[in-house]
């Protein structure tokens, strides 16, 4: 059996989750401090991929990353290579699709954190940077970890946007989800079942991890705070 789709899915999900994790945390802490109007706008923008069909995200990405798009044309000019239809194009797709999950979970965790604790730290003379890294982040670690795991799970299962920007090339851009689709089309049910069970096993493990985190955390990792108007 060719294990490439598993390896490819894992590397895309891992790299994308790494970026999503930090972008999500910084976006959450930055947007929380903005004035109301701007806050609502950015909040909507970052949450949008959660409600958009992934194919719409894929369409936009193709327009931006494609050889004629603003980013894609620069890459052709500088590196003399195309970004679309490569395995790493999926990283962009997965980051955008998973960002709302990380951003929302991080914001929920930050908003649930007692503001007085940070204020007390300030009056003790501790710098804002110290309070962010040593007090706020550790204090919210359960929520942030839950966001991380959820993003990874979502990233691993991404199909729509991924298949549009990376396509399906066996041994080069195939992921578990695109492979299952391809095998079904070919009528290769036996092999399709194998990938389906691998996918189920991974997903169940991840959800179990989220549940364990929640139990220690005391509140739901799926906690989505009310949208600000």
């Amino acid at each position, binding site marked *: 059996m060719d294990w490439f789709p598993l390896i490819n899915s894992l590397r895309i999900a891992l790299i994308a989750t790494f970026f999503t994790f930090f972008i999500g945390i910084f976006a959450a802490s930055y947007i929380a401090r903005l004035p109301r109007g701007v806050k609502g706008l950015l909040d909507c923008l970052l949450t949008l991929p959660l409600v958009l069909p992934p194919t719409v995200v894929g369409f936009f990405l193709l327009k931006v990353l494609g050889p004629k798009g603003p980013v894609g044309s620069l890459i052709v000019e500088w590196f003399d290579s195309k970004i679309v239809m490569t395995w790493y194009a999926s990283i962009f797709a997965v980051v955008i699709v998973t960002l709302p999950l990380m951003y929302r979970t991080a914001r929920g965790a930050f908003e649930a954190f007692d503001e007085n604790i940070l204020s007390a*730290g*300030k*009056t*003790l003379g*501790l710098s804002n940077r110290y309070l962010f890294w040593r*007090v706020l982040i550790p*204090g919210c*670690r359960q929520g942030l970890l839950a966001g991380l795991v959820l993003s990874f799970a979502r990233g691993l299962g991404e199909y729509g946007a991924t298949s549009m920007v990376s396509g399906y090339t066996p041994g080069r851009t195939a992921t578990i989800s695109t492979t299952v689709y391809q095998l079904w089309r070919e009528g290769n049910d036996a092999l399709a079942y194998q990938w389906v069970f691998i996918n189920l096993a991974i997903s169940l493990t991840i959800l179990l991890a989220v549940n364990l985190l929640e139990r220690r955390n005391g509140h739901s990792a799926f906690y989505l705070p009310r949208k600000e108007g």
Partner: protein
Amino acid sequence: MSLLVDIRKNFGTFRLDVSFEAGDETLALLGASGCGKSMTLRCIAGIVTPDAGRIVLDNSVLFDSEKHINLSPQQRRVGLLFQNYALFPTMTVAQNILCGMGHEKSRETRQASLRMALSRFYLEGLEHRFPDQLSGGQQQRAALARILVSQPRLLMLDEPFSALDSHLRWELEQEVLSLTREFCGTTLLVSHNRDEVYRLSHRVAVYNQGRIDVLDEKWELFENPRTYHSALLTGCKNLAPATLREGLLDVPQWGLTLSPPRVTPVNYIGIRAHDLLPALNPGINTFPYEILQRIEDTFSMILMIRPKGGSGAPLRWELSKEQYRCLEQCPFVSVAPEKILMLT
């Protein structure tokens, strides 16, 4: 050591507008919840920025809207004990206390101060515990230790005992009292509990809807409140509008006419519930009464009474259980003129 505060801040319909000065003393800010006491502390600490005004501590300006000075909370070096203590939940007691020593770089000095603080606040043996493994009292002592090692120039306590059980309160109150004496600087105490304020402070500022109603020595305030709000907050249970007519107080709400302690301008009068006394015979400020309701308290009786045959609002009368047992012999109740509070 001195603190000068003169600030204004609007929050929607609520307006905070206070000014006061404090020396080396404990000044209590007394008021109902939501009247701006805690907000005043937050403004002084720099967590909230006032719209206008000045805050000066020991000749250094912390905030001045005209000169555009607004020091960060970190630069102000004032200690604020939060109502819920605000310990860092992911750090042990020792780590929490060490956080207060950011200014001190030498490892030996830090460790020595830590040991001193742990023993001073009876936290020895608890240094490796996390805040959620401590009792309320221990959390408060840890938070106080953390503030004290940061060597604040001003100590502010926001409702320090409100989160504690009553039996713990007394113990920690004594602790805080000795601490404020050791501290020697200015201490601001925010509270809505008049007894606590009386025991812990020298002077009291009575807050009413974002303003300071009265600022006075505590003895003067409790003995002789001058305003309706200071009488209410110092625990006067019977308050009613009154007018002076031909040297007598007319109190229509109770249907009474009383002899005043002195002839001064008056809008309200107050009679403390324990200043009503049973009387055998009629006399000055003495009237027959009927009991509307009897409430047995732990160590006293509370009676709701009104002048016999009247239809006015009831008065609250507190008397000891011994007095209550002999009450049947006394058909009259009296209040000495000098016990009547003349309020504006």
